[in-house]
C-alpha cells in the first residue's frame, strides 16, 4: 500500500510495528505505520511528544536500541530510482555503512550530540573516516573546514579546532549538520532540529537546511511538533497519533482541509497571531498509555465524533483526495 503512494520513492515503509519491552509491560509504540518519501521532497512527521515520530524515523535505518524491537514491517530504501535495498534484511555492518553516509541524522539537542572531548573538525573528519572516505583524521580536516563554511559557520578554520563547549547552541547544530553532510547523504532525517534552540536561531537553521537541500538535491524527513515549521518547510505531512499515522496530505491541503478529528484539534491548538485569543485551545484528555492502547481507533477516547465502530475496529488508511489519506471511520462509511 505504502509504495503505491509515491512515484519515485527514496524510502518506503510498510506496516511497521515496533514494541518496547519495559518492566511495566510491552509498549506498542508503533502500530502499523506505512508511508513513503518522494525523492527530493521534504516530508514532515508531526504529532505530540511520545506519538512515535522519532521512533519511526530511527527505524528507517533500524536504529532502534533495546529494549525496543522492530516486530515486523518492510523498510525499503531506494538509493537510486529502480535500485532497492531491503533495510530489514541488511546485516549490522551493511546498515552501519548506510548510516551516516547515505542516510544521516540530525538530532534534537546539539549540546549533547557531539563528544565534548574532541574538536569539531576531528569529529566531522572521523565521520568520513569510519566510512572509508579517508584513511587518517588529518586528511579530513580541510574538508571539514569546507563543510563548516558550507553550513555558514564564520571563521571556520578556527571553529574546526574548537571544542563543542566553545560554540553556541546554533553553531553546534550547524556543526552537527556539517557532520551529516560529510559523506554522500541522500536522505537527511532531522529529528526536531530546532527544538532546543531559541526562535531566531531556529529560523536560521531552517533556512540553512532549505538551502542545503536545494544545492545538494537532498531529501529531508523533518520531525517536528511545530506547525509553523511544517507550513514553512514541508511538501507533504504525515500526522501521527499514539503510534499510528492518522492522516497524510500535501501541506496546503492539510492546512486548508484537515479531515481527521485529531488533525483538526491539533491545528486549532495553534494560536493565530492575528486574532485576540481568549483561551488557548487544547485537546481534551491525555495521550493513551501504549501498554494498554485503546481498542479500535486509538484516538476514540478523546474524539468528539466517536461512534460505536471506533471502539471496536481500527479504521483503514484510505484515500480521500489527491494524495490525501486519512484513517478515520467518519470517512470510511460513504
Amino acid at each position, binding site marked *: 500500500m505504502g509504495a503505491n503512494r509515491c512515484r519515485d520513492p527514496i524510502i518506503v515503509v510498510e506496516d511497521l510495528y515496533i514494541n518496547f519491552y519495559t518492566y511495566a509491560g510491552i509498549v506498542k509504540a508503533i502500530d502499523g505505520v506505512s508511508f513513503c518519501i518522494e525523492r527530493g521532497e521534504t516530508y514532515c512527521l508531526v504529532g505530540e511528544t511520545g506519538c512515535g515520530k522519532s521512533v519511526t524515523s530511527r527505524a528507517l535505518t533500524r*536504529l532502534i536500541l533495546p529494549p525496543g524491537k522492530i516486530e515486523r514491517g518492510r523498510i525499503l530504501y531506494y538509493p537510486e530510482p529502480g535500485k532497492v535495498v531491503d533495510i530489514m534484511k541488511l546485516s549490522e555492518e551493511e546498515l*552501519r*555503512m*548506510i548510516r551516516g553516509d547515505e542516510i544521516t541524522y540530525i538530532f534534537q539537542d546539539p549540546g549533547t550530540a557531539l563528544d565534548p572531548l*574532541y574538536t569539531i573538525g576531528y569529529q566531522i573528519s572521523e565521520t568520513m573516516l*569510519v566510512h572509508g572516505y579517508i584513511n587518517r583524521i588529518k586528511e579530513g580536516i580541510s574538508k571539514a573546514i569546507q563543510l563548516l563554511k558550507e553550513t555558514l559557520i564564520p571563521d571556520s578554520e578556527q571553529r574546526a579546532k574548537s571544542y563543542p563547549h566553545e560554540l553556541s547552541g546554533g553553531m553546534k547544530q550547524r556543526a552537527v549538520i556539517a557532520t551529516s553532510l560529510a559523506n554522500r547523504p541522500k536522505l537527511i532525517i532531522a529529528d526536531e532540529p530546532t527544538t532546543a534552540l531559541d526562535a531566531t536561531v531556529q529560523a536560521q537553521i531552517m533556512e540553512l537546511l532549505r538551502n542545503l537541500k536545494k544545492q545538494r538535491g537532498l531529501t529531508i524527513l523533518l520531525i517536528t511538533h511545530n506547525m509553523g515549521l511544517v507550513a514553512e518547510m514541508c511538501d507533504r505531512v504525515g500526522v501521527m497519533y499514539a503510534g499510528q499515522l492518522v492522516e497524510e496530505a500535501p501541506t496546503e491541503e492539510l492546512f486548508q482541509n484537515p479531515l481527521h478529528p485529531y488533525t483538526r484539534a491539533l491545528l486549532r491548538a495553534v494560536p493565530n497571531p492575528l486574532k485576540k485569543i481568549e483561551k488557548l485551545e487544547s485537546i481534551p484528555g491525555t495521550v493513551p498509555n501504549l501498554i494498554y492502547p485503546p481498542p479500535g481507533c486509538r484516538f476514540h477516547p478523546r474524539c468528539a465524533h466517536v461512534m460505536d465502530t471506533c471502539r471496536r475496529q481500527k479504521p483503514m488508511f484510505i484515500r480521500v483526495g489527491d494524495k490525501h489519506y486519512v484513517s478515520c471511520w467518519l470517512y470510511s462509511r460513504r
Partner: protein
Amino acid sequence: MADLRRFLIRRFITFIPTLIGATLLVYFVAAIVPGNPARLWAGGEKASAEVVQRIIEEYKLNEPWYIQYYYFMKMVLTGKAISPVTHTNVWAEVLDRFKTVTLPLTLLSFIFIIVIGIPLGIISAIKKDTVIDMILRIFALTGISMPIFWLAYLLIAALTGRGLVTLAGFPMPDYSITGIPLIDGLLKGDFEYLSQLLKRLWLPSLLLSYAGIGVLVRLVRNSFLDAYSSDFVDFMIARGFPRRRMYIHVLRNALAPIVTVLGLQFGGLLAGAVITETIFGLPGMGSYMIRAINNFDYLSLMAGVLYVAIIFMIVNLIVDILYAVIDPRVRY
C-alpha cells in the same frame, strides 16, 4: 601554559599546610598513646634511671606535645634525625626501604591494577548482564571483600612448591647506578636479576593489587556504562561508527573518575602494604612505620609519613594535570 605554571605554584604552596597537617595528626595520635618511650629506648625494664633521664632531656620528652612536635620536625627536616631505636639516620632507612622494596612493590601492584582492572571493567560493561559480566562482578567483589592474608597463605601453599615464588631474603644486584634495584636492573638489561626480583615480588604485588582491581573493575564498569548512555554515543551510532571506535570515545569520557581513584589507590599502595609486607617478609615502608609506632620511634615515623605524603601529593598533582589532558573543558 602560564595558567599551568600558576596552577603548579599554587598547588606547591598548598603542599606545606597539608604536610604539616598530616604529620601533626600522626604525631598527635602517636604521642597520646600511653607508654614510656624513654625507658623503652634506654633498654626496657633494666634501664638505669640515669640513662632514662638523659634521654628524656635529649628528646625533650618532658615538654608538651606541640613543643616535641616542633622539635622532632626540625630534626627530621634538617636531616639530622637519628632514630633512638635503631641509632641510624631516619632518612637513610626510609630511602633505602622505599627504593628497594616499596617502589617496585607499589609500581608492580599499580601496573596490575591498571592492566587487569581497566580491561576487565570494560569487558564487564560491554557484556553487561551476561554470564561474563556476572563472573567479573563476583571476581571484583571477592577482591574487595576477601582478607588478603587468607588468600596469601592459600596461594603461597599452592605455589611455593613449584618454584614460582620465592619468600626468603630480598635479591639485590651487585651494582648500583641510581640506587633503585628495579631501575638499575632495567638500565643494565640484567634480566636474570629482574626475573629474581619479579619472582620475589609478583605474588605480593598481585595480592596487594587485588582489592584495588576489584574497586577499579566496578568503577570502570559503571562509568563506562554511564558514558555509553550519553547522547553523543547515540549520534555516533547514527553516523555509522564501528563499535571499537565508539568504545574509545566512551572510555575517554569515562576516564576522569578512573584516574582520580587510581591516584588515591597509589597512595594506599605506598603505605598500606603492611599486611602484605608482613606475610611475605618484605622490608617496606608499611612495616617500617608499624615498627616505628610500636617503638614510639617518633622520628622514624615522622620521616616515613612525610615521605609518603609528599609522593602521594605529587601523584595527585599529576592526576589533576591529567584531568586537563583528558578533558579540554577543565581549566586551571
